[in-house]
């Protein structure tokens, strides 16, 4: 992208991650690249199983034991992270890069008070007394909007609601002033009003604390609320990467178009939501061509055999044959074989008259 390296908080380039089981290796992430500038929010969007969580865990160095970064670079403030030892990474985690998770109900240890758990996080990275750390926790609780913070420090997680626990998680993540916050679907498990509160809080804190956010979500509503840049992932690949505005106004990839078409609209009557038919292919049975070809409404013969390259502009790259010079020469599928998301939707049907 256009940004210079001083502005880059995080650069990920050509990241390939997979799982090793016995002798078999299954690759999940296939050359994921993106940049996060300082003070910017990047949203990673995609449906379940597309590798968005795996991307975030790779940055944190928290891959499960069988997971492995095969190749690629993860640079944080210009420094390579993929070759760091567990011990070196633990100095960065929770300090310079923090993470909040999807499940606030289970992400806190039930047998310790929330205060103790955050104090622990502070005292790993900062040489402060217990008392100073406690003061910091109270301060953080105030910041994230927990009422009567001084008393709440002594609560156990089960004495708090889901929204409050997510605020505790955010307080914990931000306690050491991280430069980068990775939020893995932080609002998915919460009800809608709490979701909005948490998103507002994150937006507010981002400005106040001058940090970058990588937000992982499958919710385009969250994207429109949070994102500066958006990365759309499908089956372990980046298929579209642009700023939030052009993504919603001018989605290029058929998959992104499908995602946006499937948002319920408040205006007008919608009897049935358009859907993208089918499911993400199994990592072991990836199509040899474009990974979306099996579900794409516009797929041509060549789409099934050859992987598309990055096309489009530098500011809005998209991985799709449609935007290549060869598209006009490619062989269309015979009629009736198309398998897209729009053909089945009620939107395209004759309106029911009565």
């Amino acid at each position, binding site marked *: 992208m256009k940004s210079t390296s001083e502005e880059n908080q995080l650069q990920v380039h050509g990241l390939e991650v997979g799982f090793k089981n016995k002798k078999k290796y299954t690759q999940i992430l296939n050359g994921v690249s993106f940049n996060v500038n300082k003070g910017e929010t990047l949203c990673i969007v995609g449906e379940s199983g597309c590798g968005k969580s795996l991307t975030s865990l790779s940055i944190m160095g*928290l891959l499960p034991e069988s997971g492995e970064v095969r190749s690629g670079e993860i640079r944080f403030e210009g420094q390579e992270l993929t070759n760091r030892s*567990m011990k070196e990474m*633990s100095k960065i985690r929770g300090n310079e890069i*923090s993470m909040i998770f999807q499940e606030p109900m289970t992400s806190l*240890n039930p*047998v310790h008070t929330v205060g103790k*758990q955050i104090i622990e*996080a502070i005292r790993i*990275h900062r040489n402060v007394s217990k008392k100073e750390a406690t003061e910091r926790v109270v301060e953080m609780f105030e910041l994230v909007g927990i009422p009567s913070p001084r008393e709440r420090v002594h609560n156990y997680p089960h004495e708090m609601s889901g929204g409050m626990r997510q605020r505790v998680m955010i307080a914990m993540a931000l306690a050491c002033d991280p430069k980068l916050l990775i939020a893995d679907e932080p609002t998915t498990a919460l009800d809608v009003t709490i979701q909005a509160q948490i998103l507002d809080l994150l937006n507010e804190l981002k400005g106040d604390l001058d940090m970058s956010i990588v937000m992982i979500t499958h919710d385009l509503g969250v994207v429109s609320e949070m994102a500066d840049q958006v990365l759309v992932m499908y089956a372990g690949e980046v298929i579209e990467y642009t700023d939030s505005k052009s993504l919603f106004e001018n989605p290029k990839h058929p998959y992104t178009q499908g995602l946006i078409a499937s948002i319920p609209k408040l205006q007008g009557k919608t009897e049935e939501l358009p859907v993208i038919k089918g499911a993400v292919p199994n990592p072991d049975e990836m199509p040899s061509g474009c990974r979306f070809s099996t579900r794409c409404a516009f797929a041509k013969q060549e789409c099934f055999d050859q992987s598309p390259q990055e096309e489009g502009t530098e500011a809005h790259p998209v991985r799709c044959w449609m935007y290549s010079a060869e598209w006009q020469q490619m062989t269309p599928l015979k009629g009736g074989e198309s398998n897209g998301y729009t053909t089945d939707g009620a939107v395209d049907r004759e309106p029911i008259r009565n």
Partner: protein
Amino acid sequence: MLSFLLRRAGLMIVILFFVSIIVFSLVNVLPGDPALMILGQEATDESLEALREDMGLNDPLVMQYFAWVGDLLQGDFGQSFRDNTEVSSLLAEKIPITLQLTVMSFAIAVLIAIPAGVISATRKGTLWDSSATLFALSGVSLPPFWLGILLIFIFAVTLGWFPPSGYVPITENVAQSLWYMLLPAVALGVRLSAELTRMLRSSLLEVLGSDYIRTGYAKGLLERAVVYGHALRNSILPVITVSALQFAAFLGGTVITEEIFNIPGLGQLLVTSIQTRDFPVLQGAVMFMALAVILINFLTDVLYSILDPRIKLTGGSQ
């Protein structure tokens, strides 16, 4: 907490009441005549009858029961039929011996089980894990009496490092006492440690996969701090349940081991009292064990609520 204590105390009285009835009935349906056991086969009918009358064995059972319970409530466990020693002093003499054996074997079991369980859970699938699993499996399948005999053969008879049997009171000589008790404690402890290792491994594996463990790593903790600071306390509850049950069982169930190593503990007292139809001793010993089980269960519940703040001790039934 107070209502919990009151409720537990009430429950304890009820349980002890039923236990006392069962103990008393069981003892009285045992075949065999204590008078005959005392006086021997050559005793005359008159002398037997006189002794029975004297011991109160001719009274109706209900009368005998209430006489016994009445005495119990005043702290009087009665006298042994054999030599008229106070049952309470017999118990006071034997209980510390068995308690020492139990505590020592538990110490050994825990010292083995916690590291072994932690290693095999955190190094799952490695040689460490396989070795710990092998140990656990063989430990569970080794009967303590067989292990006891094996230990005597190797360490006492062949190598001569330990005394083969016997007992020295801990009040007399602490080192000697521990020395004498070590082999039997190992014989009992190995099996328990094997059981606890398996339990801890599976429980720890489950906890290590939970979200708050990931949170621990995410805030920058190293593995040791995560395992010992966060995982262990959450995974120890099932281990404590098993331990508590075993502890209670050990107090009365170390009969065979005590027999093999010739330790004059509660187990031996129990066996002798059954063999000689020494009812007061038998009843007293069994009542003590019932009390011990109840107390240990109570302590376990308290320990639970300390370890896991989600568990609240309340008077209500849950």
